């Protein structure tokens, strides 16, 4: 019979062993979804507000959660009432602007509103209070930067590229590019927001820059050795094998379809599909992990979809 080369056998054997090793996850309970009970919608008076309203409405209709609306603009800029009409549409409560600090910045007002309302999920536009067309993909805005750093609850960041009339909760994609202790929490939130029968994708993405760094470092230590990007994909899959197994089990228990995508960063990744596709991107951040924070900022700026940012365990109220 025809023989493959030794290198081919080595490579295929290693891949196959890695696949089997991934099955050694121990006995795991299915991942339990987390659903919000109370959503805070922060408005900025921009053209993006209707998009936030649309998402809040989808959440309310699907999860029967309470919704509170807050005008997040700084007091000096809040010259007109932008909350009442949207609140009526959503059958939501409105936070009295007078109850928030008059001189506070927008992020402080939103954080205060989260605390006051008892919301466990917030929705805010990015860039907050600025014209997206002028800022483009260069910035998420100061308000979002601060919210990501300080918000005790997950935040759905809305950018207007996505089509507001589409059901974004029928498909969620959790994107992880490395070890992340918030990942299970992010997955729980993603599963909680997902519509019944929806599609859950766990995308493990090896970023090109990360690969280059690992490769150069390895080469500096062992000049004769090289590492392929596929090896990092395998490693990433191994790191998150327990989460993958829990999601597999949860997909049966909670009736959604689940798929693991292990990829390396291409030209358009992780958003390389059909432009008409709409889904919720879910990212996990750790306060002490600068890589996860910069990864989140980068993806929010580039994402044509709304992005749910889930902070580390313990920050949530």
């Amino acid at each position, binding site marked *: *019979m*025809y*023989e*493959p080369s*030794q290198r081919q*056998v*080595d490579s*295929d*054997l290693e891949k*196959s*062993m890695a*696949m*089997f*090793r*991934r*099955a*050694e*996850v*121990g*006995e*795991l309970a299915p991942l339990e979804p987390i659903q919000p009970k109370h959503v805070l919608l922060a408005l900025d008076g921009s053209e993006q507000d209707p998009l936030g309203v649309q998402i809040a409405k989808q959440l309310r209709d699907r999860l029967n959660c309470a919704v509170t609306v807050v005008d997040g603009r700084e007091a000096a800029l809040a010259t007109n009432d932008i909350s009442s009409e949207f609140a009526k549409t959503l059958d939501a409560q409105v936070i009295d602007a007078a109850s928030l600090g008059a001189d506070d910045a927008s992020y402080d007002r939103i954080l205060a509103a989260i605390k006051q309302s008892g919301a466990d999920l917030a929705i805010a536009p990015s860039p907050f209070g600025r014209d997206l067309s002028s800022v483009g993909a260069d910035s998420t805005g100061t308000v979002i930067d601060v919210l990501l750093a300080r918000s005790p609850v997950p935040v759905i960041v809305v950018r207007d590229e996505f089509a507001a009339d589409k059901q974004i909760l029928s498909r969620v994609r959790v994107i992880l590019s490395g070890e992340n202790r918030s990942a299970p929490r992010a997955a729980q939130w993603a599963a909680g927001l997902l519509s019944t029968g929806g599609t859950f994708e766990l995308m493990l993405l090896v970023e090109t820059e990360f690969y280059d760094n690992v490769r150069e470092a390895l080469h500096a230590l062992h000049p004769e050795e090289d590492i392929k990007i596929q090896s990092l994909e395998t490693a990433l899959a191994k790191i998150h*094998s327990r989460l*993958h*197994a829990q999601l*597999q*089990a949860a*997909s049966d228990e909670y009736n959604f*379809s*689940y*798929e*693991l*995508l*292990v990829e390396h960063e291409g030209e358009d990744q992780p958003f390389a599909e059909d432009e008409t596709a709409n889904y919720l991107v879910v990212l996990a951040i750790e306060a002490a992990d600068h890589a996860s924070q910069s990864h989140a900022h980068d993806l929010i700026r580039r994402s044509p979809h709304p992005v749910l940012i889930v902070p580390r365990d313990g920050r949530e109220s």
Partner: protein
Amino acid sequence: MDVLLLAAETSEVDTPGWVMLLFAAVMLATYVGVAVERFHKTVAAMCGAIVLVILALSLGVVEEFDEFHEFIKHDLNIFGVIIGTGILVDVTSRSGLFHFLSMLIVRATGGRAAALYFAICTLTFFFVAVLTIVPAMLILSSLVLVICRSLDYPVKPFLLSVAICANSGAIVTFASGLPNIMIGTQAKIPYVHFLLISAPYALVSFLIALGVLRFFFRKSLPWKQSPIEKAQLEKKISQFDPWALVESRYVLYRSAAILVATVIGFALAQPLGVGMDFIALAGGTAALLFAGKTVEDSIAKVNWTVIMFFLGLFIIIGCVKEADVLTWLGGEVVELSGGMVTALVPLLAVFSAVASAIVDNIPVAATLIPIVNQIGDTGVSTEPLWWSVVLGCNLGGNGTPIGSISCVIALYTLKKEANTNVGWGEFLKLGGTIMLIQVAGSILYLLMLYSLGWIPSLPDAAPAATEATTALLM
């Protein structure tokens, strides 16, 4: 019988003896090149083909260059089967279907040595039948390494058993191995005939191997374990979750459905009036369309080097055939056997097994195909002969450490991953014994089927044989 001998003697051999000898020498030199590690098999075959093309044109054995294209034209269907099944196997393997199934079954054994051992051997048999040897060996070798390390079992008995059981799996169906594909397409053997003739003996040869292996490794594994040990093993093996290695259930289900549909398609190819290559390519295309996440990678996984190898080999066989070497050889074989099937079956089975154990079963099959055709032209019933070549070429692989790719992979993996060397002597004692029993058994099996008239006639072979016999008798 005299008539058959006369037929062999009167067969037209126009080529001068020294030209026949020269062509045979180049073919043998190429086979030596294929057998020794110094040359790449494909390079050896292509070199042999180039030398023979030059000789054939310069010595007038072949008059027009276009005639070489005719040699390959008849074998295009083999390439179609290799490409189609290659893509299908790659897509289904990537879906995790076979990893999932094997882990599911391994978990069901509770990790007990005896149950695990027989489960892995049985998985090997079935996986090779569906996937062919190389992909199945890679999956099972990696499974053995991961599980044995986790449960503290020695790797050697498992890997050697997998290697030997793989060669029984290779004779189950038309698509289980390259010699089967070559012989099946050339002799137009329907897929169902494989299930009727070679599959039952595949099972018998598997049981023979299991018996000898169990005896050989009687002291190598803890065949009897206490309830406490069993409970500990159960706990360890339950740490493996088969679903954790599946990336997408839908891709897995679709891959399984396409694979099953392709196998059914193979079985129905003849009644549907299409070739196996069509079914294989349709299956491969469906896999890319419905289950392929990495189309480019899967197409690249097709064994293009084996296709190049075949290209060279078919040119060599075509040239040697044109030089009447195979005609002469066929005549000699008929003469030696007296044209009796009862002599030809053991002769071909033993020759193909021994040659495959030493060289490689693909050139052995490629050389024997025109010889069996030649024998068939003298009126001998070829059906039992084809099966003796199929069984001999595959089971011969157990004879030596280099006889089959399953043994090569297993011994290489043992050395690299378990730091264990298996010498020729040790392997010959184990594999050689099994090969002898299996080949002897295959001869008895085929002769028994032949004497009972249970070997089905090939679609157009029976009338042809009858006509040839009638013509000779007249």
